[in-house]
Every structure is written in structure tokens, then in C-alpha cells.
């Protein structure tokens, strides 16, 4: 089927604009009192930091924007935050949870 476009790994960088595709659903699970990410035959259990980051991933903001925002919010060095969220988003991108 389809066009033989070779599929490539997405590499998350400061300029990437990450977003969760519509079939990835992050929601609050009231019964279990926690946030969950529903994905094809997968469940992810994000900690509060991940939830905060993923809420900011709207496909418009860059990773840099998100790091700056959180740096302000939590008064932490922007460099450290960016390194951390790039690692997190790369992992989620490899698992198909985030597109960029």
C-alpha cells in the first residue's frame, strides 16, 4: 500500500514542537487517583513532572519554550530542565506516544 516514504526516527531537539497525537489520551483517572496515558495496547504512568510537560506539548510550543516556561515556574536552571525533558520526550517519541 501507500507511498514508500522511508520511515525515520524522530530526534527531539530544542526546536522540536512535540504533541501527543489524538489517539494518545492522557487523562485523570479518578478511581485510581492518578494521571494515565492511554495508548494502543499500552498504558503509561506519568509522574507529576511528566504530566506538566505533556500538558504544554501542544504542537506549537518548542521544547525550548517549554523548558523556559518550567524554569520560570519552578525557579530551576533552564539548561537542566531542557536536558531532562528532551530525554523524556525522546523516550516517548520512540514509543510512539509523542510526535514532533
Amino acid at each position, binding site marked *: 500500500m501507500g507511498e514508500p516514504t522511508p520511515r525515520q526516527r524522530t530526534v527531539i531537539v530544542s526546536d522540536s514542537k512535540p504533541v501527543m497525537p489524538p489517539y494518545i489520551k492522557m487523562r485523570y483517572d479518578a*478511581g485510581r487517583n492518578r494521571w494515565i496515558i492511554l495508548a494502543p495496547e499500552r*498504558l503509561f504512568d506519568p*509522574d507529576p*513532572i511528566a504530566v506538566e510537560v505533556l500538558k504544554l506539548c501542544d504542537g506549537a510550543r518548542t521544547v525550548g519554550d517549554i523548558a523556559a516556561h518550567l524554569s520560570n515556574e519552578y525557579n530551576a536552571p533552564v539548561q537542566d530542565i531542557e536536558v*531532562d525533558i528532551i530525554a523524556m520526550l525522546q523516550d516517548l517519541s520512540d514509543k510512539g506516544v509523542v510526535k514532533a
Partner: protein
Amino acid sequence: MNEIAPSPGGHVKEGTITMDAGEMRCDANPSSPTAPDPSCVVRAPIGLLAELTHRCPLQCPYCSNPLELEKVNVELSTEDWQKVMRQAAQLGILQVHLSGGEPTARRDLEEIVKTAAESGLYTNLITAAVLLKRERLEKLKECGLDHVQISIQDVDTQAENADRIAGYKGGSAKKKEVAGWVRELGMPLTINAPIHRHNIHSVEAIINYAVELGAGRVEIAHVQYYAWALKNRSSLMPTRDAFMAAARLVERKREELKGIIVIDAVVPDYYAKYPKPCMGGWGKGIINITPSGRVLPCHAAESITHLEFDNVRDKPLADIWLNGDAFQKYRGTSWMKEPCRTCPRREIDYGGCRCQAFALTGDAANTDPACSLSPLHEEWAKVADVESHQSPPAFVYRRPGGATPKPAAEKTPVSSDA
């Protein structure tokens, strides 16, 4: 919130609800932040495997449905299934796997999907795809279908082999067409490939084919030997060498295709080191409902002949999950005998599979012979080696009544190498 840990990716733990032709496994991080509710030792289930019908145009000889297939006239009604979906969501279930048989054989699939989606369930269609038309797939998407899993028997260039395995002419080409529609509609696609002696040489080609089809996931699902697969074990069992080669290949492809496709693999327990943690623990995370509404802790549980199963027609799902005899019987670890009872792995593998223990030892509370601590283990493990080196007998295809021409008692590994 005030600390951002330096460990990469440490912010999101992963659990899986995986299902393939033979097994469903849930290891969705159950012991995470939520403290166990002291008033209720039983945790809410995570996944529901809804076998909407046992009707299926395919005749795969490794089918996980029981040999005694349920007939159309005992199937739950649309309203019954809709009620089940609402009750499942209330119970805390997060994902529903709409399966069969072939779920698209039910004309009311759209209504069931719609109710499931409206109830907040993540909906997964597990299909052979050959009955699907493009308009129907669009309709299902509109109704809220989140994900499609299509099973294949081999790659498109081996269509003849694929169609022979499925007992369905033209199936391979049709599946390819439907997979294309799934992607064109922007839906996520998983390719599920049950692996056995007749396609284990194609594992690399199958993974590449899944990439070509645009799948985000591919399941290299070694057949689990229950039901029809047990009946056909001597036709299906790959050699240990073939299995090991396939396992190495999967590892290599995982590296090579990182970020392009997720490769999940299910190991055949005949060649595994430890027994599998069946269902991630009995009555722990998964509920299975048969076409007629019987509620099972796993899809093979009816093979344990002394268990009694409740029906969603008679009782609310929550009541069945919490109190049903079949769920309580092997839940937790208190039912265990030695060597399981004091085994350090008792909460890791739960003594393996209850159905396999029952089939081979006559007591479902015994250790699964897949475990090296089982007195039957040696004999059991030998079976795979012997059968996989004999020339494979013809398939007993999965069809109503298809298992009965040989009325002899279900053969067990212990006797079958004679």
C-alpha cells in the same frame, strides 16, 4: 515537583496490555503510587477482552478460542454488550479489546464501539480484517474507535503460505488493503503475527512488512499452546534453534528500528526459562467475556472443568470481579501449594498458568509444568523438541465441529511423543 530527576525518561513508567493469539498479559505497573485501598484488596481491572462472537471467516489452526465454539444464537445482544461497556468503565477498566472470533462479523459493532468510547474506554479492534469495507472502518472511527490491530499469517509476497495457514483464499491481499485504509484514516495500526513453524523463517520480513504497512507496533507473538493450538501443536511447534534465531533477530531489529516501530515479542513457554505470569496474575488486571456473556479470568479458563463462571446477564460485572468464585479461586497466592507457596518468584510468575497446570497435572493449583520446579517439567520440555523435529501433520483447522473428528481425549504432552 521541585526536583527534576536527571535520569532520562524516568518520569513515565510503562505498562503493557498486550494480547496475541494465545495470551493476554498485563503488567501495567500495578504497584505504583496509589496505595492499596485497605477496604478492598482486589484491585480494579485494567483491561477487558470482549469476545463479541466466535464466528470467523478464517480457520487459523492456532486459534485461542475454545474447541467448542459458541454459536450465534447464544451471543449477547447489542444492549447486553452496551451494558457491559458502561459497567466496565465504572469498574475502572481503561481499555477494551474488541475481539472474537472476528468482531466485525457482528453488525452492531459500531453501536458497541460508540458506547464503549462514550463510557471513556480506550477501544482496540482486534481483527482479521477480511470482512472490513472502507466505509465501515470510517464509521467505526467516527464512533470512537482508537486503534486497530490486524493479524497476519505471513508477508504479502508469501500470500499463498499466509492463506494456507488461515484457510482463507485472498486473505493476505485483503489484509494489506485494510491496513492501508487504517493508515489513510490516520488511525494507529498494530500488526500481530502469530509465529510458528510455518512462518518463523519470515520473522524479519514480517517486521519489515509491518514498517511498510505503516504500523506503529508489531507483535511477534509466538503461539501459545492452548485450545486449537494445543490440538495442532505438533504441526506448529518450531525447533528451539529456529526460536532462538528468531529471538536474536527481534533484538537486532529492535535496535535497528528504534523510534520507527515498537516490536513486542511473546515467548513460547516451552522454550522459556520461567513460567509466564499468566494474565499478570489471576483476577488481577484482566477480564475476559465470551460471546454468550460468561465472565472468565482468562480466555482459556473454561478448560478448568470444575470452575463455575458467572454471566453478565445475571450479575453486575463489579460483583463478578470482586466475588465470583472463578475469580476468587486462584486470586493472590493463598491457594498455592509447594513449591509455589514459599517460592521467591510467587508474586512474579504466580506459579505460571493455571490452565496448563490443570491440563497436565489434573490440579490447577499445581505448579505449571513450564516451571523447572515442576516434577513434570523435564518430560514436558522434551515434547517441544521431539514434535518440532518430526514432519508436521496436516492442520486441524479451526471451524465449528472441526475438533471433533478425533474424539479421543485431549492429548497431553506427556503422552503425545509416543
